[in-house]
Structure formats: structure tokens, C-alpha cells
């Protein structure tokens, strides 16, 4: 166990206050159960998400940079973002500020206009919730704390796209043993295996779910998600573990839509990895926000003695 991430700045982002509220709840409860200190960024703003980035990527860089500067002002060196979109945007801002003079100029201009200090690349490190748990507690630490083992629970780990793409904004990945892989991510697999879960071989871990086009081209998204779901079932999974609110909502929503529109019913359950780890540590399903999920896994969880 490392003390490096014992205390981190917590950037929940907008999704975790809305559709991904269960992820926020389970992340906070998991941190508490593990004795980790999450300090929420004061007066944080949107990371620039889809809406801003689509129109003006430099403005998105500024918005993310402002969050990083808040962490710095709070005396924190690490920002933990559980949402893949936020994580991706903060990492991208860090990259752009280090490599693009235009982004630096816009960020400086807007920071002055907004009346705060300009963030300089390299002052704060952005990590994902997976990095946080893995580094601060580790697999052995999880094993030692398990109260309700996930033994017998077959899990397909779905990472989605923004956790590892594009590769150049994640310089710490693909560095060999111990580092995360963009080809075949495994941090979530490792943590859940430590909690007793049986990870199934899932060949679509990072495959496209059509997320960004879920409203403009719903049928494509539904078909892509349906393939993710049926493949997970074919792999023998009881549960798809997620680590992103957008992936999670997309899987749940299109699971319902696939049945309504295409008459294709799938029964695999979808849970955040923080919910699974929390329950393995003895937290109740309610405590980790399971009742807030769209798909109801209560029967499965009861059968496994969880929650």
C-alpha cells in the first residue's frame, strides 16, 4: 500500500451528480471504507465534456485547466476523476498545455479574464478511480479487507473508449509490467479478482458503444451495445463491471431499448466496479447505490450473499 494517493482531490464531474449518481455514492463509500480521503474540489466546473469540446477544444482545455488549478490552490497534487470523460478531458488538457502554444495562450487569456492564476502543465497529476484504488490499496490490500468475497460471480470488465484513447494523452500507460495497457486494460480485472470475482475473457473490453451518438443515431448505438451485452453473456458473465457513468448509462439504457425496439432481451447485470468492491468489503447494496441502477441485480446479489 502506498501513501501517495491516501488523500486526493476528488473531481466528480457533472455526470456523477446526475445519471451516474450511484457511481459517486459508491466511490465515496468505497473511499471511506478503505480509509482514503477524498477532498472534493471547491467550486469545480464542467471539464468541457462533449458540448464544449465539440465546438471549441481550446475552451475545453481552459475549463479542465481551471479544475487542475483549483486542486493546486488546495495544496493537492493529484486529481482523481472516476468518469472516463472527465479523466480523458483533464488528461487531454494536461497534454495540450504541455504541447500546444495556442492552448496555453487561450488558457492564460481566459484565466486572467476570470481572475485566477493560470494553470501550468505538470503541476497536478490526473488519475482515474482505478489508479486510485490500485495504487493506494492494491490487490493485496483489497484481498485482506474482503468480507463478502465475490467468489463465483462471473464478471466481464468493460472499460469503454475514453479510458485509453487516444493513446498519446496517457503517457503512463503501455509501460510494461505494472502499468495499464491500452490494448487490453486490466486494472479493473485485477481489483475485482482480488475481491474474489471470476473475470471472464471478454474480447470487447474497449469496443465502441456508440455513446456519443446515442441520441443522433440511436439504432447504431443500440446495436453496438446489444453486441457488447450478448458477447458478455456468451462469455458466461453474470455482470458487466463498468468504470464510467456514460458507458454504464449507455449499457443500461440500450439494454432496455434493445428489447423494446429489436425484441432482443439480455439479462446480464451492469454494476459499477466501485459497487462490486464496496459490497465485497461488506457495504450494503443500498449504501453503494445499487437501487439507483436501472437494471435490477438484487436477485443475483442475494443469491451470491452480497448487499
Amino acid at each position, binding site marked *: 500500500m502506498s501513501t501517495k494517493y491516501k488523500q486526493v482531490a476528488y473531481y466528480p464531474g457533472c455526470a456523477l451528480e446526475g445519471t451516474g449518481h450511484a457511481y459517486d455514492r459508491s466511490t465515496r463509500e468505497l473511499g471511506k471504507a478503505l480509509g482514503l480521503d477524498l477532498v472534493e474540489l471547491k467550486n469545480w466546473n464542467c471539464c468541457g465534456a462533449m458540448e464544449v469540446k*465539440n*465546438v471549441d477544444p481550446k475552451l475545453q482545455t481552459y475549463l479542465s485547466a481551471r479544475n487542475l488549478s483549483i486542486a493546486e490552490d488546495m495544496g493537492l497534487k493529484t486529481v482523481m476523476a472516476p468518469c472516463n470523460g472527465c479523466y480523458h478531458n483533464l488528461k487531454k488538457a494536461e497534454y495540450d498545455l504541455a504541447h500546444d502554444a495556442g492552448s496555453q495562450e487561450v488558457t492564460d487569456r481566459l484565466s486572467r479574464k476570470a481572475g485566477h492564476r493560470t494553470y501550468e502543465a505538470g503541476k497536478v497529476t490526473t488519475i482515474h478511480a482505478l489508479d486510485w484504488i490500485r495504487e493506494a490499496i492494491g490487490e493485496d490490500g483489497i484481498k485482506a479487507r474482503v468480507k463478502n468475497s465475490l467468489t463465483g460471480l462471473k464478471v466481464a470488465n468493460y472499460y469503454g473508449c475514453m479510458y485509453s484513447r487516444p493513446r498519446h*494523452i496517457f503517457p503512463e500507460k503501455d509501460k510494461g509490467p505494472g502499468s495499464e495497457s491500452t490494448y487490453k486494460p486490466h486494472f479493473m480485472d485485477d481489483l475485482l479478482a482480488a475481491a474474489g470475482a471470476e473475470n471472464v475473457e471478454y474480447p470487447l473490453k474497449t*469496443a465502441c458503444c456508440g455513446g456519443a*451518438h446515442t441520441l443522433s443515431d440511436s439504432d*447504431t448505438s443500440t446495436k*453496438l451495445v446489444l453486441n457488447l451485452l*450478448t*458477447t458478455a453473456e456468451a462469455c458466461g458473465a453474470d455482470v458487466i463491471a463498468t468504470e464510467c457513468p456514460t458507458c454504464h448509462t449507455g449499457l443500461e439504457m440500450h439494454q432496455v431499448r434493445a428489447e423494446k425496439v429489436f425484441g432482443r432481451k439480455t439479462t446480464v447485470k451492469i454494476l459499477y466496479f466501485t459497487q462490486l468492491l464496496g459490497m465485497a468489503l461488506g457495504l450494503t447494496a443500498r449504501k453503494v447505490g445499487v437501487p439507483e441502477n436501472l437494471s435490477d441485480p438484487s436477485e443475483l446479489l442475494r443469491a451470491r450473499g452480497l448487499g
Partner: protein
Amino acid sequence: MATIRGMSLDDIEARCEAMLVASDAALSAAAVQRADELLALGEAVLEIWLAARGGVPTTETVEGFRLLALHRQGARGEPSFNACRESCRELVYHHNLVRLDPAHAEVARRLRLGAMVARHLVLFIGGKLEVAGLGEFCCAARPLRQSEAQANEIV
């Protein structure tokens, strides 16, 4: 290698579906042929994408596989195409897995998983042919609406 030239995306998807519903016995009996067919189907999908963009699909290989060379070709100047990078590699992996041990007890299951990966490739490329921006925003971290916004002087 199975002949798949001239197949449409719908034909390719139908071939994947056929493999998914085939019996274990049928898949096991022709495991190597089916594994080669999966790879060929993947190549055909990428050829369709490249041809639709006015390109000439390469005959080169990367790491010994044309599928990976086609992916590299498709991703040139089109970083969102990396959204299917892992799917291509998974397809190669499942092909190799079957090829290495065609008599393995799980060979039918391996072929079906390969067919699911191939189907994902079909769906993704089909989606990109409908909406070219698929994967652009997320996998390539590129803006979708910047030019429109500039044209309308929003930014």
C-alpha cells in the same frame, strides 16, 4: 481462405450470425476454415470502409496480418478509426487461438467469440458509414462541430 469479395456489410453480418448459431459439431469440424473466414470477413469490412473513402485497400501485412495493415491504412489521418484497433487485434487473436489448436474442446466457443468481435467490427464500420463522426469525439478527442461553429461565428 474463404472467398468473400463483393460481400456487403449485411452479407458479412449474416455470415457472423450464421457462425453464431451453428452447432458445436459444425464449427469444430471446420475450425481452421472458419477461423480463416473470420479473418477474411474482418478484412472485407475494412476494405468496404477504405473503398467508400476512395482508397485502394492495401495488400501489405502488419505483424503477418493483412487485417492489421488495413486497420493501419484506415487509421491514417483518421484517428477515430482507432476505435476498432483492439477489435481487429482481438479478431487476429481468436483466429490464432483456433489455428494453434483446432481440436481444442472449446474451439466452437472461441469461434463464436471471434464472430462476435467480427460482428462488432461490422456494426462499428456500418455506423461510421452512416455517421462518419462515430468515434471522432471520444476515441480521437477531436471536435465534431468546430467548423460549423466557426462558420457561424459562435466561437
